[in-house]
Each structure stands twice: as structure tokens, then as C-alpha cells.
């Protein structure tokens, strides 16, 4: 910042990160947004950094108060939308007119609200947020008590992996939306593996997880039970990838079909 409160071009370039974090004062924000229209470098940087910043948001998700849903949906029915973005959009009022929220009781529900698993949104979000843990997290809400007990037993193991100093995450999703994610500690040879978007299995079939290493037969790391994450240990540090196949109940000694999902392990510290 110069003496006269005017910022040089060079200073403006450096505002991408504070902008992505919403850490600019209003006048700076306005100036920087003007700058963005002509600066490709900052535009690209802001886009990447904003995606990073948004990742911080995912860990804060919390169920919204139930009454809020009725209020918002009622307001939507009574609120016109802005004109097409092609025309100049009218400025947004800072506060919505008081009548929008009203004090009237919400209209009676025509049908029971669909019960969504509490954090199911995050499962969908992985496409954008690409967080392995989001899917880990999503499945928990839909479990039965039995599964929850298993999950609790697992959760200690999971916590241990998360706490490993070298724990890292990666995931992969193919064009058909089939995904596999892992959080792994290469040093400890342990990992949490999640699947998503694989669809329902025919009865009598399971998803089996395999560890792939150079010049060695695939080794089974276990069978998935529904959408529960698989916690595995004893992974060799020269492992190159994980693969998932569909196998008959009880699993197979060696894969009997083509992998339906695969994930390279280099980015989480294996094979180095």
C-alpha cells in the first residue's frame, strides 16, 4: 500500500489469497474484482485458491434447524427470481424485506419431509470437494445399530491412521462416477478405503479389494460390507495401486474379473 492509499498493480496481484478467503475490506474487494476482469493470472489463482478455501467449509457442515426448511421454502414460493443473467443483474439488497420470513406459522406439510441421511450431501459433494473423508463421513449416517457398533470399533483404527504423521489422502473417479478413495499411512502400511457410486451388487456378490505390487500376484485386502469403509493394514510399501473387483460371496483367492475401480498409491507415499 502506498502513502496515498492507492495500490500498485503489483500489490493487487498479491491479493488473490486474501480475496479467496474473503479477507479484503469492501473497497479493496471492489478494486480487486475490477482488476480480475483484466488479469488472467489472478483469475486463475483465485479460482484454484477458492476451491482450497471451500474445502475448509466441508468440515463445518451441521444439520440446519428443521423449521428453517419450512421458512425458506415458503419464502421461495413468494419471492421472484432475478432476471436472466444476460441483462444487467439488479443489485442485491443487503437485507431481505422483513415480510419474506414472516411470523406466520408455516403452511401445513402436504407430506412427511423426506428423511435424508444427515450428511448425505457430503457424499454428493465429493465430486466437487473431492474429499475422501466426505464419503467416509456420509455413510455413517445411514447405518443400523449393528453397523454402528462395528463402525465404532473401526473408528479407533481410523483415528489411528488419521493421526499418523505421514497420513495422506487421494481419490479417483471415473467418467461413470465410480469412485475409490483412500487415506493411508505408507509408513505404517495402513489405510482406510472408501467406495462410491458403484451401484448395487447382484445378490451373492461382493466388492473385494486388492493390493497391486510390481511383479507379484494381487493380494486380497478384504471384502467391503455395503458402503462401510474398509480399514486395512499390512500394506507393502512398494505397492503401486489398489483395485476393486466384483467377486462371489466370501471373496476369491485371486481376482476373477476386471477391476471396476483402481487407484494409484504413489501420491499417498507408496512405492517411493
Amino acid at each position, binding site marked *: 500500500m502506498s502513502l496515498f492509499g492507492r495500490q500498485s498493480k503489483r500489490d493487487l496481484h498479491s491479493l488473490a*489469497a*486474501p480475496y479467496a478467503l474473503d479477507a479484503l475490506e469492501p473497497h479493496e474487494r471492489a478494486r480487486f474484482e475490477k482488476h480480475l476482469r483484466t488479469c488472467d493470472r489472478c483469475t486463475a489463482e483465485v479460482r484454484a485458491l477458492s476451491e482450497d478455501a*471451500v474445502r475448509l467449509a466441508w468440515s463445518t*457442515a451441521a444439520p440446519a434447524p428443521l423449521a428453517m426448511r419450512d421458512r425458506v421454502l415458503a419464502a421461495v414460493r413468494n419471492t421472484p427470481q432475478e432476471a436472466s*443473467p444476460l441483462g444487467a443483474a439488479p443489485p442485491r439488497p443487503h437485507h431481505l424485506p422483513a415480510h419474506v420470513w414472516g411470523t406466520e406459522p408455516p403452511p401445513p406439510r402436504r407430506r412427511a419431509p423426506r428423511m435424508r441421511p444427515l450428511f448425505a450431501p457430503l457424499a454428493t459433494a465429493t465430486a466437487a470437494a473431492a474429499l475422501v473423508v466426505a464419503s467416509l463421513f456420509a455413510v455413517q449416517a445411514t447405518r443400523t445399530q449393528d453397523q454402528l457398533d462395528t463402525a465404532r470399533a473401526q473408528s479407533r483404527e481410523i483415528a489411528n491412521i488419521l493421526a499418523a504423521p505421514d497420513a495422506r489422502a487421494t481419490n479417483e473417479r471415473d467418467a461413470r462416477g465410480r469412485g475409490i478413495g483412500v487415506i493411508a499411512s505408507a509408513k505404517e502400511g495402513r489405510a482406510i478405503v472408501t467406495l462410491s457410486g458403484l451401484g448395487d451388487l447382484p445378490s451373492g456378490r461382493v466388492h473385494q479389494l486388492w493390493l497391486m505390487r510390481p511383479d507379484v500376484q494381487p493380494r486380497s485386502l478384504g471384502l467391503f460390507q455395503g458402503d462401510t469403509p474398509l480399514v486395512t493394514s499390512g500394506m507393502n510399501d512398494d505397492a503401486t495401486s489398489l483395485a476393486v473387483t466384483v467377486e462371489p460371496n466370501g471373496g476369491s483367492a485371486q481376482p476373477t474379473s476386471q477391476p471396476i475401480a483402481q487407484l494409484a498409491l504413489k501420491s499417498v507415499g507408496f512405492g517411493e
Partner: protein
Amino acid sequence: MEADELLVRVAGGDQKAFEELYGLVSGPVFGLVRRVVRDPAQSEEVAQEVLLELWRSAGRFDPGRGSALSWILTLAHRRAVDRVRSARAATEREQREGMRAHHPAFDQVAEEVEAGLEREWVRHCLERLTSLQRQSVTLAYYDGYTYREVAEQLSLPLGTVKTRMRDGLTRLRECLGGVA
């Protein structure tokens, strides 16, 4: 249906699509707003405004510039930060006038929901940052301070804070993983 497609339908005035979108994003929006604003009543108010704004301004969403979820959470964060700053300014005014601030001090967000693993993983990755990177990022993103205020709080030059913010976010990206 994913948020991107829903948002496009919402822009066309589809109320059913909005209901579905609400199911997807109300939790993340509310949670984020509450993390920043803290006061439960105000958080609810801001979250409502954000969700209604989605309805009103869905046409502004440009799929070419990023994902719908990122657009939505960016919007929610912006509104939350605006609110917490004006509340702070009001508190300071009251204190200057010798009045007792009537905003209850929530040093911990009430009724924490077990965001469990998700939260743990972000925390894990935040811990991998240097202390200055972490504080620069979280004071701005979670507490809504401007980078000037962050610089003041950490007694750092402005340029250093900007750099720490950028490096912190970049490193966080590497740790969180999933970047194809």
C-alpha cells in the same frame, strides 16, 4: 441429481429442484455460517438469506467457472463474513459508548455436531501447516478477519500475511488430497 444440474434447473424457476438442492446444501451452508457467525439466531438468519439468495440469483451461476457447491459455499461464506464484521463493528461502537456488548461470547460453537472424520481430517491437514500459515488462514476463513486485522493480531507485515495465506491454502490442497 448433482448440485450443478439442480442449480441450473433452479435458475429456470423449478421449485422442486430447489427443494432437492436445499436437501443437499442446507447442512454445509448452515454449518459454515454458524462457524463464522457463531451466534445461533444470527446464523440461522444469515443461512436463510443465503438459501433464498440461491433461489433468486441462481441465474448468475456460471458452470464454466467452477462447481455449484463451491459457488454456493463461497456465497455463504461471503455473507457470513459480512455479518460478523458488521456485528463486530457494532460491538466496538457500543463498547466505545460505554455500553455492555449484548452479544453473548460464544467461544465454542454450541451443540457441535459430530462432523467426526471430516473434521478430523481437515484438522490433521491444518496441523501440517506452519503455525503462521494456519493462523493466517483460520483467522480469515473461520473467524472472518480481514488480512489487515490478521496482520495486526499476529504482528506481521501485510505482505507476509498475504504470502502465508497463499502458501497455507496451497499446502492444504496437497494434504487434503483428491486433486486429480
